[in-house]
């Protein structure tokens, strides 16, 4: 290895205090400099940190944004999520391949540009979209590709080098009273500080506010468990790793009102007795980092963070932003904590729950971005105000990230209890054959269920809402969801690691018109096994694209099933091609 690499690594490791827990930041910084993390660099990091190389490899090999081999100076990551495909991603992909003369997964011979696919980057409302060295390009048309490539080649990508291509739009379509209303910095914190932490938690209890990530755990309960749990220190973590395909509400919060979220984190810190908060931001949203750091700096200047927050003697609280590196699973709270500790993002077994043993095995409250915004508002306007909105078990408003076949995709703040029908009307979707509620891990519902309500007691959701128009091949969309789970399974447990792959293979056979009723039965058995036996939410929900369409769209499956008793797993002609090409033999007339 060149000594240059070793020096780069040593400097970076020193910058992060030789702290093993900061391996994520170290790896990100090294990768930014070297473009890859080879086995040699792994060894250099391990040496500098004084840990085992296998630990470093374990961690760095886990995240999609770390490459083991040298890649191009610029990597163009085109998002291949379902909505992207619906909005013409294939044509854009072709244009990239033609313009650069390489395929996806390859690097141009001059070493300048690599092409990669990446799962949902939170831009489904502006698809097709791509990440180019941290910069986000949206609404890409095939005719834009040449100018993008030119801008990359001339190094002008980051200073307005491409005029024709859009960058991210906030795309807030409908503001509501809770998240996107005018707001005064510090109002919520001051109110909280005028009360005891217990009373703050009690206020959340009165507001009946539940977690906005989708699971809907009561916030007051989480904070209360965390506060009461014993530990050397308590922590607050805000989960900004929104990775569910089709969701982008946090992006809009972080663009429009990050202050509200930081405010909520600070209140959470006060409520659970934490001095340190972490904001875990998905790697795909790196473009937001400079702005968010500015916001944090301003809050420190205003006395809203740091020692004696708002002049409250003894309440010290600060926030560090932790960037991720491309792993959907890190949206799972215990996986996120592992990642925060500088490890692979593998979820933990529960119990113990993070509120008992979280970051560094200390009590930790992990909350969704939107939930913490709600908390800040509840402090500001009171529980009664908040619980007057929504339904009995789902108070307040919900942000929906709406994309797919509709006239006005974007983020909508709606009251809980709104029917799917109303939502479709609101966004101008007139011919929906199906709506994916809560993303791939949620459920795919049919028109017969459009009268149902979005709320925890009926259709719970983290917000991802994908609309499929009548002409879409719905099962092909489900296949793409299954592929997503194969890519994103962390691999810790057998049923999810292997099961998601078998699920996809069995589903493909059916989709290719080579499936029998018996194959369908086996598919369902695999789906139920993965759902029941998997360790965390990813595996437990990965079969949902299959299971919910089986329930709601049985006719689509009937149409694909063949009447045969049995169809071989492979095609004989295909299976003979290789040998024929090696030996020069001609296929025999096989009577079958």
């Amino acid at each position: 290895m060149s000594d240059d690499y070793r020096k780069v690594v040593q400097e970076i490791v020193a910058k992060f205090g030789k702290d093993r827990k900061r391996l994520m930041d170290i790896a990100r910084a090294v990768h930014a400099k070297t473009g890859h993390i080879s086995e040699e660099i792994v060894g250099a990091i391990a040496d500098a940190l004084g840990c085992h190389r296998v630990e470093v490899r374990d961690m760095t090999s886990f995240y999609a944004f770390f490459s083991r081999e040298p890649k191009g100076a610029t990597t163009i990551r085109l998002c291949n999520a379902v909505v992207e495909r619906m909005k013409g991603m294939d044509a854009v992909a072709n244009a990239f391949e033609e313009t650069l003369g390489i395929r996806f997964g390859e690097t141009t011979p001059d070493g300048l540009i690599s092409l990669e696919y990446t799962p949902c980057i939170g831009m489904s409302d502006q698809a097709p979209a791509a990440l180019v060295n941290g910069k986000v390009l949206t609404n890409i048309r095939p005719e834009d590709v040449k100018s993008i490539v030119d801008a990359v080649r001339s190094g002008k990508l980051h200073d307005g080098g491409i005029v024709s291509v859009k960058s991210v739009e906030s795309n807030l379509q409908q503001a509501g009273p809770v998240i996107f209303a005018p707001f005064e910095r510090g109002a919520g914190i001051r109110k909280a500080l005028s009360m005891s932490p217990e009373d703050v938690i009690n206020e959340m209890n009165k507001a009946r506010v539940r977690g906005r990530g989708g699971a809907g755990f009561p916030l007051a309960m989480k904070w209360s468990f965390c506060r009461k749990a014993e530990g050397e220190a308590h922590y607050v973590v805000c989960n900004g790793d929104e990775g569910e395909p089709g969701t982008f509400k946090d992006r809009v919060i972080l663009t429009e009102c990050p202050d509200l979220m930081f405010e909520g984190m600070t209140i959470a810190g006060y409520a659970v007795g934490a001095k340190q908060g972490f904001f875990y931001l998905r790697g795909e949203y790196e473009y937001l980092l400079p702005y968010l750091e500015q916001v944090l700096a301003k809050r420190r200047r205003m006395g809203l963070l740091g020692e004696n927050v708002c002049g409250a003697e003894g309440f010290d609280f600060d926030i560090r932003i932790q960037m991720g590196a491309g792993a959907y699973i890190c949206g799972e709270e215990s996986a996120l904590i592992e990642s925060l500790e500088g490890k692979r993002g593998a979820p933990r077994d529960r119990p113990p729950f993070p509120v008992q043993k979280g970051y560094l095995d200390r009590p930790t409250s992990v909350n969704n971005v939107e939930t913490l915004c709600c908390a800040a508002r509840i402090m500001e306007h009171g529980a009664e105000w908040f619980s007057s909105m929504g339904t009995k078990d789902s108070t307040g408003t919900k942000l929906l990230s709406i994309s797919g076949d509709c006239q006005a995709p974007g983020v909508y703040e709606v009251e809980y209890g709104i029917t799917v029908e109303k939502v479709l009307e609101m966004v101008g979707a007139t011919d929906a054959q199906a709506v994916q509620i809560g993303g791939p891990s949620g459920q795919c519902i049919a028109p017969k269920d459009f009268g149902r309500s979005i709320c925890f007691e009926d259709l719970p959701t983290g917000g991802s809402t994908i609309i499929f128009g009548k002409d879409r091949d719905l099962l092909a969309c489900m296949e793409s969801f299954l592929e997503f789970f194969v890519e994103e399974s962390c691999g810790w447990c057998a049923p999810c690691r292997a099961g998601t792959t078998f699920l996809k293979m069995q589903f493909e056979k059916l989709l290719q018109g080579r499936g029998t009723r018996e194959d369908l039965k086996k598919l369902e058995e695999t789906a139920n096994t993965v759902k029941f036996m998997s360790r965390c939410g990813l595996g437990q929900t990965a079969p949902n694209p299959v299971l919910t369409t089986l329930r709601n769209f049985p006719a689509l499956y009937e149409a694909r099933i063949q009447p045969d008793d049995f169809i071989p797993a492979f095609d004989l002609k295909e299976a003979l091609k290789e040998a024929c090409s090696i030996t020069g033999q001609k296929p025999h007339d096989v009577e079958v």
Partner: protein
Amino acid sequence: MSKNTVNIIIDGVEIEAQEGQTILQAADDAGVYIPRLCYLKGLIPGGHCRVCTVKVNGRPASSCTFPVSEGLVIENDTEELTTLRRTVVEMLFAEGNHVCPACEASGNCELQAMAYRLGMLAVTLPFLRKPRELDATHPDVFIDRDRCILCGRCARASEAEGKRVFGFEGRGINKRIAVDGEHGLKETDLKAADRAARACPTGCLRLKRIGWKVPVGQRQYDTTPIGSDIEQKQPVG
């Protein structure tokens, strides 16, 4: 650790457990066998294989990690769970490249024995047939990843004995066992006497030069199902 006891019910039978135990530990002590692959006594449980999944108050949970508490109602030996466990074991067979007739661990292999116990006659899931790397660089130990089920027992055993010879690499279906050396096992401080070198439930991580020594018929699981030792140790009274 607290000496308080709690009572739990497994398949309708009440058993006494020590507070702080997991369901699996309590079941072992009571002579109730819960099938498992990645659990190894004395190591921190990993929760990888999920074969020890039971129903706790009606919901699935891995018994190797779930702590006992008063009044838990657990389902273990049911047809539903046996089928689910068998499917997971089948997945492990189809995921790797397990050729029992050509494997020196045959007869002593926990994966194979588990499949026998759960009544697996064939693997009907599609075999993945992916090439996997063999590491025979170490003088006394080899790794044949074709036979790896990613139970992590070697990694946990190594960590428990103050070394860090093994870890994981990659994610999802591409995850594999990794070693703490740039060019293989020989560069690690693994010794044949380490518990880590003997922690593997399959034929993946094996000591060299001891294969095929025990005749067929006398191997560990030739005549007695895996778990018999636990089932035979019914506590007095």
